[in-house]
């Protein structure tokens, strides 16, 4: 197994020595910086608000009335309940709500787009790592070592996942820095309020952000595995990259189009967004978190087995 560590080292060397990878990291950093600048420049100067408690009390009153009117919709009721409880918590504990963008709200708002970008990068990395060695012919010198093809494939897959984690760390650190520079490092101490089962808790922003990242990674994880399967099966990195990114981008449209059918719940993309069980509403009322996790697991196992078979069993003709 010490050998396996060496394989990971090799794959990492091949990933990070490529110019394409360096460009990806630069794009990621550039995107965060641009987002910070755009928000900063378009944000009105914050007014000093000493009356915030009164305005929260007023807001809560208004929400109470509105909640009474929308009784039928469980989702809306939940939303009002959460906002009211959070506001009340602020009043009780003397926690002034933030004005405009803060360090942490910037880190949070950068997450969805950056996660999509990182997914695209990870798809490109896994497809190139697996398929491009067939194009360049280096696969021949790679697979004539006393090492099983399974181990080679696994090292490529794990190195890609490590690359994705690395990107997330870069994203976290850099968006924290940019958030601090643009909106003040004073915001770093801000409390994060979460609403769990009808109660409000003060939790850590760091945890909240990483939970957010992790949920976005469900789609990343599945699409990287899918791209790996296509790359192994067709030995063509362009096809693997194109098809995976296309499906990922089109996933919400696909789900909308199929929304009417009951079997839509078995479609991969109906289950990759787990926030439907935390903050949103499930796509279909008969879907639960454990149902989605089961569907994801089944897809995952199928992707892995097919990809593995293609990679390990076929002749190398390159």
């Amino acid at each position, binding site marked *: 197994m*010490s*050998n396996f560590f*060496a*394989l990971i*080292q*090799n794959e990492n*060397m*091949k990933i990070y*020595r*490529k*110019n394409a990878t360096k460009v990806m990291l630069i794009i990621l950093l550039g995107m965060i910086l641009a987002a910070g600048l755009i928000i900063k420049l378009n944000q009105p100067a914050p007014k000093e608000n000493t009356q915030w408690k009164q305005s929260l009390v007023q807001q809560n009153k208004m929400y109470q009335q509105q909640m009474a009117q929308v009784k039928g919709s469980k989702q809306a009721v939940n939303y009002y309940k959460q906002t009211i409880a959070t506001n009340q918590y602020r009043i009780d504990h003397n926690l002034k709500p933030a004005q405009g963008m803060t360090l942490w709200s910037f880190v949070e708002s950068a997450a969805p787009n950056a996660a999509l970008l990182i997914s695209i990068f990870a798809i490109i990395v896994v497809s190139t790592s697996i398929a491009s060695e067939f194009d*360049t*012919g*280096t696969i*021949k*010198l790679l*697979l*004539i*070592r*006393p*090492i*099983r093809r399974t181990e080679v494939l696994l090292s490529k897959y794990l190195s890609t996942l490590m690359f994705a984690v690395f990107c997330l760390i870069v994203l976290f650190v850099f968006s924290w820095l940019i958030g601090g520079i643009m909106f003040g490092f004073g915001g770093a101490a801000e409390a994060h309020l979460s609403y769990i089962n009808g109660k409000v808790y003060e939790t850590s922003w760091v945890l909240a952000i990483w939970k957010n990242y992790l949920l976005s990674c469900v789609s990343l994880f599945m699409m990287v595995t899918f791209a790996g399967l296509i790359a192994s099966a067709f030995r063509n990195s362009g096809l693997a990259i194109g098809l995976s990114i296309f499906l990922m981008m089109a996933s919400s449209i696909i789900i909308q189009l199929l929304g009417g059918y009951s079997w839509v719940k078995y479609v991969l993309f109906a289950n990759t967004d787990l926030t439907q069980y935390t903050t949103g509403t499930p796509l279909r009322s008969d879907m639960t978190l454990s149902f989605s996790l089961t569907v994801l697991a089944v897809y995952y196992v199928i992707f892995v087995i097919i990809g593995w078979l293609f990679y390990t069993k076929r*002749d*190398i*003709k390159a």
Partner: protein
Amino acid sequence: MNSKVEAEKKPAVKLEHVTKKFGSKTVIDDLSFEIYGGEVFGFLGPNGAGKTTTIRMVVGLMRMTKGNIFIQGHSVKSEFKQALRQVGAIVENPEMYKFLTGYQNLIHYARMIPGIDKKRIDEVVELVDLKERINEKVKRYSLGMRQRLGLAQALLHRPSVLILDEPTNGLDPQGIRDLRNYLHDLTRKEGVAVIVSSHLLSEMQLMCDRIGIIQKGKLLGVETVNEFVQEGGEKVRLTVDDGAMAARVVKEKLAIETESIEPQAIELAIDHEKIPVVIDTLVMSQVKIYGAVSVTKSLEDRFLEVTGGKGLV
């Protein structure tokens, strides 16, 4: 040199009834032969004969449809790791990672087999004469430099079986000579078994101890280079004062047809023992003889003869 090999009798590489089909097309047909430590085995055949396909099966890149291959007694099918631990190889062109330097490429391969230290890498770099350029990216290498780097990665782990598919491709004359000398040392001093496939037939003649000729996936025969060349019969070239007269004399007195007649020379395809008889006869018939040379056929002539002269680069 073959006596030592004969005594050991343990093949380094052994092919047993190896057959490979692509779909219904049989590309390798029931190939069986053995290669021993201490010899350079030349794998010869026209384009598309199946040399590369055979090598791919030996190194586990392709599965065989039938048969089995053993490397130092380990089956490539069932003991892949033990078998491949013994092998260093170049398959077709030595394609390396172009975005890495030569040295990084070697580190990459060194990591995949335990027991290769920095010193060994430097040693191999020195050996293939790439020291000055080893820290440059491979995309800036010439073909010959890539070939040298390919050789370096094949030698890193001191394999007991070295397989080189067209290793002289792209090498300059000095490189070819170095390779030849190095292969000679490897086999004689370290008992390594070397398999070389090449189109440079004259090269093979200098480099190889035995050659196997393959055509359309079938083995036409395995012989030592000397046997192979001589089997076509010996030729004698006699320099004389009058070629036409000499030809007439041997035809009338000895009933031997002359292969070629020049004004001042004739060439005869005759057995070794017949040479003095011919010379005696000519002398007695007043033909002046200025010289007699025995001309062995070149490997190339023999190769063309055996394979029917078709489909050769």
